[in-house]
């Protein structure tokens, strides 16, 4: 874990003091709402349907148990006793009072957390692979460079009033678990032929109204030059991105309009200028940050671990959970546990204060005191000994988070939708709940296999529906909630955008429609091993269209 030094602490507490001033000036009427809005947004504060919503950053998805307990305590003291983990590895509180926000930010600061730049037209929280540091297929722990980026982007004077929001994602692994090509800038840590670590930089991906898979703009940027390269990318955007139309203001539109080649050329032209300003961090600073992410001390354990193997044999439900929710660890005898925040019929990503405390306790006991947040709205215990997995699973059962559905059809992403969000057209959570109940049967879920359903309540696509194997988009048709289906999206290293399959379905019909899609897949797959997305890519949309709408 990164640990703040006196400078980080000073900057964080000065920020709290600054925002406290701004709130006072707003309440006194010195600042109008128009003037205040960008300031509050840059402190993570929105106005939603029912109240203010505060979005807390969980940089690159890593939490200490102390931080998780603080999040729980804030939920209890200042909100309604729960929080919502989002697709951008943030935590949202839904019932916040403006007057209390400075106090909440101070509480966050006391555990080295903040809500800086979790909204607004600035550089947002950097997301990363949730298995950072424990995945076997990793070139380098992505949190190192993510923390470098976090500091560089914090209160960046040049890039705090961009045309639109700006999101980074980083992965250090071959398998992309951070959906980097759906971000404004996606960074893939790579090794060149000389064995040096550097960064492949993808620019101009995104969801929203115009989904785009980001093109590769620069295959290799050396570590000591990354920040100046990023500044060049951002400056070209800040100077030339569109400000006349909010729907065309993201960098993806600039890159598309210029063409990736021309955009890359302009960045190259700008790069010597940003390099000359000395923004790149020295090796000593990277080394300092790297030291915080040194692997913890693991025990030497010989696999197979007899007790673990026996428990799996003895208990089929446990074996299922291991199969789905435990990811291989680079250290023998350990596993990385994904805690499903998707209990059947539950609200995806929600956890109560009590549950957060219980998970913190569990991590202290069994996972070296660390917790991760995934962009699929689940939590991870990254360092659990195989011998402890059975106990962890049993305890999770008591907490209500032992569903063995990671990557399966009930592991649904859903944005807050019309139940909370002031921009929504339709409800998302309610659909997720009904789908989850419809497909609750464990054996059926396993038979269906890997299948990601992602639901957004409006075209902003916070629920990543474009990247869902099955995507659901809520729209408003004459005051009625209507749901459009997209098929064939994927957010991993084979990133693709789902195709709209036809006219939308009413809330009553949408579950049945998804069931038809699933049954069509089961009928046409070549064997039990062919996943939904593989089958879809092989056969295309036609059979699904026919099943949904009949022959035309």
């Amino acid at each position: 874990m990164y640990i703040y030094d006196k400078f980080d602490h000073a900057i964080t507490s000065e920020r709290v003091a600054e925002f406290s001033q701004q709130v006072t000036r707003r309440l006194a009427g010195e600042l109008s709402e128009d003037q205040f809005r960008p300031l509050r947004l840059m402190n993570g504060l929105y106005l939603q349907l029912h109240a203010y919503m505060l979005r807390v950053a969980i940089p690159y998805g890593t939490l200490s148990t102390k931080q998780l307990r603080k999040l729980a305590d804030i939920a209890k003291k200042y909100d309604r006793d729960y929080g919502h983990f989002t697709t951008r590895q943030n935590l949202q509180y839904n019932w916040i009072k403006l007057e209390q926000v400075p106090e909440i930010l101070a509480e966050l600061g006391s555990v080295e957390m903040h809500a800086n730049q979790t909204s607004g037209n600035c550089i947002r929280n950097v997301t990363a692979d949730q298995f950072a540091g424990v995945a076997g297929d990793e070139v380098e722990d992505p949190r190192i460079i993510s923390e470098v980026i976090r500091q560089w982007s914090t209160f960046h004077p040049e890039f705090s009033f961009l045309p639109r929001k700006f999101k980074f994602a980083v992965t250090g692994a071959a398998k992309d678990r951070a959906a980097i090509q759906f971000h404004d800038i996606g960074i893939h840590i790579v090794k060149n032929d000389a064995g040096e670590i550097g960064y492949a930089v993808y620019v101009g991906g995104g969801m929203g109204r115009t989904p785009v898979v980001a093109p590769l703009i620069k295959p290799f940027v050396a570590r000591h030059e990354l920040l100046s390269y990023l500044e060049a990318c951002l400056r070209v955007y800040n100077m030339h991105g569109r400000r006349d139309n909010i729907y065309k203001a993201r960098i993806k539109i600039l890159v598309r309009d210029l063409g990736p080649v021309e955009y890359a050329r302009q960045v190259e032209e700008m790069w010597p200028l940003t390099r000359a300003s000395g923004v790149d961090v020295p090796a000593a600073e990277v080394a300092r940050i790297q030291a915080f992410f040194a692997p913890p001390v693991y025990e030497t354990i010989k696999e197979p671990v007899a007790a673990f193997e026996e428990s799996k044999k003895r208990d089929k439900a446990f074996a299922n959970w291991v199969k789905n929710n435990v990811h291989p660890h680079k250290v023998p005898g350990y596993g990385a546990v994904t805690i499903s925040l998707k209990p059947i019929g539950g609200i995806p990503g929600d956890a109560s204060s009590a549950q957060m405390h219980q998970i913190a306790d569990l991590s202290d006991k069994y996972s070296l005191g660390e917790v991760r947040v995934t962009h699929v709205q689940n939590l991870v215990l990254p360092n659990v000994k195989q011998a402890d997995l059975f106990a962890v699973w049993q305890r999770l059962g008591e907490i209500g988070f032992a569903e063995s559905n990671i990557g399966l059809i009930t592991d649904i992403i859903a944005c807050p939708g019309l139940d909370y969000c002031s921009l929504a057209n339709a409800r998302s959570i309610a659909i997720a709940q009904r789908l989850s109940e419809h497909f609750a049967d464990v054996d059926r879920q396993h038979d269906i296999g890997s299948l990601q359903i992602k639901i957004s309540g409006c075209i902003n696509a916070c629920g990543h529906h474009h990247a869902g194997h099955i995507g659901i988009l809520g729209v408003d048709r004459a005051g009625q909630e209507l749901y459009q289906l997209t098929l064939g999206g994927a957010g991993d290293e084979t990133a693709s955008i789902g195709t709209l399959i036809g006219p939308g379905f009413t809330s009553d019909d949408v579950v049945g429609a998804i069931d038809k899609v699933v049954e069509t897949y089961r009928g046409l797959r070549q064997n039990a091993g062919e996943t939904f997305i593989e089958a879809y890519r092989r056969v295309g949309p036609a059979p699904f269209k026919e099943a949904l709408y009949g022959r035309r």
Partner: protein
Amino acid sequence: MAVVDRAGPIADSWTRLADDQAPAAGATVIVSFARLKNEHNSLFSAAGKVGVEIAGDVKLEELEPFLPRLGLIVVRMNNMRDGRLFSIGRMLRENYKYAADMRAAGDLIPDQMLYLLRCGFTSFEVKDGFPIDSLRRSVAAYTHWYQRIANSATPVTELRHGAAHGGEP
């Protein structure tokens, strides 16, 4: 309308010249960029000091030849959310080595001025009644910064590792 710097109101000796108005001999004038491009020879010889007002869509290469002789650049934005201002300021200072007064104009709030100062601006055109106390508080809000930028304080990286490690120029 008033002009302020980081400490508060300052005297403003500049007068704005309409495009059809001739400068008085030795006057301190702000002209449009179009006029500067067309009449720079006569302007620089007639007026005492010449400043120019530019907008967000400026091509800095076109401004470059005049920079050494300019006494003021006013960068105007019509919307406080138009962040091109910040990039223009930094480029003028860091890359074009422009050294004289640089003024931001538009519907700015005190809280943005700290960032503008860090991007190289030195003065601001504001409406009458601008909250000076808030300005003074806002520009003093932070003692440390992560980034090495234009004319701002020593970045945290350098404080952590000493000047020798303070990043390559």
